[in-house]
């Protein structure tokens, strides 16, 4: 269980519906949730229940139909698009099921990308990116392109990438969903280690029971609500 009770993110009465012409398809129907600083939170639930949608909204990639997401009591959806992009850049890291690395860029460049967006101090950025790749065990793979890396390696690059701006929270959507057992374990090792060493907050969407048993707190999503 989380030792700290300091709330990082507060999700308040979140509704999200998708519209197809006249018909409304409600996905999230009043989600209330608090995410604490430095905790490892898993969101589980049947597929199609809206786990990813919830994660996208928390990650400001999508807007809710109604309801708020507060980071340190700040309503992020009150921000303009540019401010929101900047906020996402600084405070949120993402890891996806499919690595989503940019194919035209090397591992090092992929990791550095997030920092290059907002700063032009290339030398420092690449040094940090190198340190992160070293940390995830890929110091030999700096100038490799994603197509030259294995699935597990790509996912580790993706994790390194999510950390480049020292975000408040890393949102992971099925981070091991596409990996074999051995690679999965290596990736999870990394997450636990990061959480233990630097107190990094993680929110992980998964339906991997094994993973869910190793986190601080599990939240189950049923019928668009927290169970």
């Amino acid at each position: 269980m989380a030792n700290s009770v300091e709330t990082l993110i507060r999700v308040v009465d979140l509704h999200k519906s998708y519209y197809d012409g006249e018909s409304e398809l409600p996905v999230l129907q009043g989600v209330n949730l608090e995410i604490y600083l430095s905790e490892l939170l898993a969101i589980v639930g049947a597929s199609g229940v809206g786990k990813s949608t919830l994660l996208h909204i928390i990650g400001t990639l999508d807007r809710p139909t109604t309801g708020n997401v507060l980071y340190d009591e700040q309503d992020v959806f009150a921000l303009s698009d540019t401010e929101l992009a900047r906020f996402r850049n600084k405070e949120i890291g993402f890891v996806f099921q499919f690595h989503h690395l940019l194919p035209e860029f090397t591992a090092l460049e992929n990791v550095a990308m997030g920092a290059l967006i907002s700063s032009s101090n290339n030398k420092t950025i690449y040094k940090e990116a190198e340190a992160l790749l070293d940390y995830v065990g890929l110091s030999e793979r700096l100038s490799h392109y994603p197509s030259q890396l294995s699935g597990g390696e790509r996912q580790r690059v993706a994790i390194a990438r999510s950390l480049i701006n020292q975000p408040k929270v890393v949102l992971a959507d099925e981070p091991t969903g596409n990996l074999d057992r051995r690679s999965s374990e290596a990736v999870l090792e990394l997450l636990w280690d990061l959480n233990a060493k630097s107190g990094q907050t993680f929110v992980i969407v998964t339906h991997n029971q094994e993973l869910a048993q190793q986190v601080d707190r599990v939240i189950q999503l049923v019928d668009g609500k927290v169970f």
Partner: protein
Amino acid sequence: MRFEWFVASRYLRSRRKQSFISIISIISIGGVALGVATVILVSAVLDGVEQGLKERFLANEAHVVLRLHDSSFFRNYQERILQIETIDEVTATSPVVWAQSAVFQERSDTIQDVIYIKGIDPVLEDKVTGFSKFVDGSTDFQNSEFIETARLIRDETITGGIVLGGRLAARLGVIKGDVLRLIVNLAKHPVNESMLIPDLANFVVIGFYESELAVYDNNFGFIHLEAAQKMYNKPNQVNTIFVRLTDAEFAPRIARRIEDKVQFSVLEGMPDARTWMELQAPLFSALRLEKIATVIIEALIILVASFNIASTLIMTVMEKTKDVGTLRTLGTSRGNVMRIFVIQGSVIGMLGTLLGTVLGLVLCWLLSYNSARPSYWYAIVLIVPIFLQVLIALRRIIPRSRGWMLAVSMLWLIAIGFALYCAVTPISLADLGLSQVYQMNQLPIQVNWFFVVFINILSFLICWLATLYPAWQAANLKPVEALQHE
């Protein structure tokens, strides 16, 4: 902008396609380049033709022609000329008696033709219209050997010599040494007033005027100024002043200044200074119309090339949709994404424009540079880089290393340059049977630098505009949908 440049330049080179520059970028750049090169070349030819015609025309035409509105004679033309010559841009003036006259040969008893008579001082006229350059024969109106001979064998009065337009002479059937009678004036018969007696003057044909400008060669006869003054009984008077300027293009401005500057007595008519453009308005307005039409077509060519950029970018955006989603999760704003694609398209536009400019100018140079060239068959050297490129594409013998790619690119440049040098030579209008029509031997090329700069700016602007829609489309992709795009 640094981040956007970083991403855009990588997309242009598209590492995944494993080529030096992605093939689609090359095609788009090539499209713009061909458009711009065509525009520069076509307008250089048009300008060349216009310039060539102008030069031919101006070679025997004054820049400004000053007369009085009622075509009467100036009271004191020497003073007028002094006034005109105080204008800086005026380099020479020639006082002229301009008239019309009926002509017939000594053995003929009917009028053969009505011609324009230009009474000139050959020395002054030379400075204004280069008169003597076009004369086949003598320009000595008073003492030519033909006149001496004619005076010896005839008992009539010979007023002087006449230089006849070449085609006019052919039409009249006269040769040098023949005597031509000019009807100067028709006087009433002292007894029967309904009868008119022609007042005649005899001139010996001393030369032919061959300017290849039909209007002169067909219709003009040149006599000495004093002979003309005597003939028309206007001693020491002229009715026309021909003016040459430092630059023919100044004519409209200087014509107005001449009208203002020269003070005319109230007894005379109003001064009327005509420019050579006004005198040849139909020709040059036809040329101008042609040019406007061409510029419109040229702009369309570039527009078509810019569609190429737009479709390239739309394809890139579709291909990169997922990556745009990723970039948005990393915290790029819509503006960032928009700029990435605008930069990508603009770089294509800029490279294409610059390349096209270079190509167009090289073609212009080759078309105007007369030298002994190797046979155009040598353009076959292009086979070498093509062959190497195929080897690279097939991954045979030559590795896809950066060094080799660069070497082959250089080879391409050299081979294309050499092939163009061999194959593109000045176009002979004589060979095409057109030298008579245009009165030029070779297709003239005149590069207008101002226009080249204008086309560069226009082309870049059009290409930039073409990037806006695809870039806007990319910027407005919804991050979540873009991420899930397959």
